[in-house]
């Protein structure tokens, strides 16, 4: 590495020491994070019916895969191979695991897929474009109710007028649900553009509350707090019967994979750089020609559109919609899941969402206290790993790579001398 005289300033040296301190602090943080996560996944369910011998195998496989990804250089051909094999492995797991599972497990897996789509959207808005949105549950609700209303040929009454909505195929209903959420997100987006940070959070939270109140009180439209039963028994797509829980999970999985692919494409395209510029420094981005208004609305509406699609899937997954499922608390869950998983990483939403779905189920053995455990877990995670699980993993890997390279170089110089 060449260093010109101009760069060898005092500032550079100071910085090196700072990084060293951070490195020291990071290692114990990562240890605490790993212990906390392990405690939650493995130790708590021990001695209950939830814990089986096969779980040790899963845990072992997980440790092996994570370790392998940690050790290979991410930019090398081996690293790329390992990364793609890991992704393929995860996908294969999601395809094979549901075989022969009970309906309740399949429901949990379905929730994982559906909420995963929401969190991928949240991650795009918050993790990449840097805008806090606490309205994701609202958009989920809009999507869910729209898909329900457009499905049964329902008669709706609003403001004294009543009409019968057409009965549309399920796939079209999903598309309409996503688009409706997008339209609402642009409507809320324009005023939201004027505010930043916590104020934006308040605006979106207020919008979520508004959606809840409409769902709860406009009985002519939504049946209010009674909710609407929406059985899956009549749903077929391309001749495939989605009544079977496993088929429906696979159906949701296709959307999850598609959502991941779309967001992956966006963040690696020039749009992704514009979003990150928006997150790091909006004023500077504007001064370089980035149209911050359009990009903000884009991020917002893509995130909301994904939540809307997820809403349509969610309604059919639990076969029932009711306003309480779209209350602001649910938005906080999505928010926490995305933050704990790792903002601005592609893997983060998956990790986060497994905490709020699979782990919530695991923690049911803690009875009424499971929210307490989850809350405690979030607090610990935020203290020890502010960048979330995936973010901390990336930090750890970068550090290990640096160390390995150094060792490699030292070995090289010994040989030559």
């Amino acid at each position: 590495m060449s260093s010109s005289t101009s760069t060898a300033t005092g500032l550079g040296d100071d910085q090196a020491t700072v990084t060293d301190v951070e490195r020291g602090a990071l290692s114990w943080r990562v240890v605490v994070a790993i212990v906390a996560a392990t405690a939650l996944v493995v130790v708590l369910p021990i001695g209950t019916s939830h814990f089986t011998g096969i779980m040790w195998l899963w845990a072992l496989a997980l440790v092996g895969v994570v370790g392998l990804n940690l050790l290979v250089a991410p930019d090398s051909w081996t690293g790329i191979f390992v990364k793609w094999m890991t992704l393929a492995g995860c996908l294969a797991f999601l395809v094979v695991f549901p075989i022969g599972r009970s309906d309740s497990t399949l429901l949990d897996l379905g929730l994982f897929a559906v909420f995963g789509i929401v969190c991928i959207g949240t991650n795009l808005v918050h993790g990449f474009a840097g805008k806090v949105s606490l309205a994701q549950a609202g958009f989920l609700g809009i999507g869910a109710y729209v898909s329900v209303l457009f499905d049964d040929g329902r008669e709706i009454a609003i403001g004294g007028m009543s009409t019968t909505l057409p009965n549309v195929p399920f796939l079209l209903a999903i598309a309409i649900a996503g688009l409706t959420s997008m339209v609402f997100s642009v409507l809320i987006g324009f005023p939201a553009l004027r505010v930043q940070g916590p104020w934006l959070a308040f605006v979106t939270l207020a919008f979520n509350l508004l959606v809840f109140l409409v769902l709860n009180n406009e009985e002519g439209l939504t049946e209010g707090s009674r909710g609407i039963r929406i059985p899956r028994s009549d749903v077929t797509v391309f001749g495939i019967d989605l009544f079977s829980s496993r088929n429906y999970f696979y159906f949701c999985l296709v959307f999850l994979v598609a959502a991941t692919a779309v967001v992956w494409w966006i963040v690696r395209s020039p749009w992704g750089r514009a979003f990150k510029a928006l997150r790091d420094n909006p004023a500077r981005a504007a001064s370089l020609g980035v149209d911050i208004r359009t990009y903000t609305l884009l991020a917002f509406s893509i995130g909301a559109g994904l939540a809307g699609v997820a809403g349509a899937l969610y309604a059919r997954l639990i076969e029932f919609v009711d306003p309480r499922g779209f209350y602001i608390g649910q938005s906080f869950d999505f928010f926490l899941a995305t933050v704990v998983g790792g903002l601005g990483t592609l893997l983060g939403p998956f990790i986060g969402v497994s905490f709020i779905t699979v782990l919530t189920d695991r923690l049911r053995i803690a009875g009424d206290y499971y929210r307490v455990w989850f809350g405690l877990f979030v607090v610990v995670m935020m203290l020890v790993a502010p960048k979330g699980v995936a973010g901390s993993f990336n930090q750890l890997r970068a550090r290990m790579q640096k160390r390995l390279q150094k060792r490699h170089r030292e070995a090289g110089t010994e040989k030559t001398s």
Partner: protein
Amino acid sequence: MNTIDSVDDASNVAVGEEVVVSVRNITKSFGGIRAVDNVSFDLHKGEILGVIGPNGCGKTTLFNCILGQYRPDGGRVELHGRDVSRWRPHRRAKAGLARTFQLLQVFESMSVRDNLKTAAQEHIGSMGRRLFQRPDMGLNDKVDRLIERFRLAHLADERAGNLSYGQQKLLDTAMAFVSGPAAVFLDEPAGGVNPAMLGDLKERILDLNQNDGMTFAVVEHNMEFIFGLADRVVVLEQGRLLMTGTPDEVREDPRVLEVYLGG
């Protein structure tokens, strides 16, 4: 030498000199305070124009009005004769008005290369097309040349946030050039940069000015730095234009001495 009275007539524009940016009667008030009061000047192609004045005289406010961060209460900004006064900042940037800010402004989480690509990408193609273009948008060569020129090659893949202050300042400046702008407005480029790097920065600016014919307007507190750099200097005092002239003229003008020493 031009005084405040003669700025508005065209006599100060040398024949054949093309005006890139024309600032006409810009006025901006905050509450009861007139931060910029009826300021007019022309920025000619290929020149380096210094903007100086004591603290709080409205230099940065003037820049913010020219580049769209503030909407002026009155006056006009023209780029190549086109009125851009009502455009939003990103549109002015795309039209060719680039700038840096007084405080350091790089995208900390991105690599040096990505910082420069971000600075360049919005000037190419439409937004819809950009989604389907290759991530590097064919900018690699251009960006690498600029990195080389700003002596940041060994840091090209480093996170911008990990760079030293001086290096970030260089990157910040480089980002203003990558799109090939018509004029670059630098807001205190020398602020907080240590003397060793100051020469480097000056060299880069002069290099771009002399070899690429780049046009500059530079707000600066460091008199030594600006007098060694500028072809022409504009002096502001309490929001008003005090005088314009060559560095030598400004240095010797009694009014300028009074503002800096008497005030």
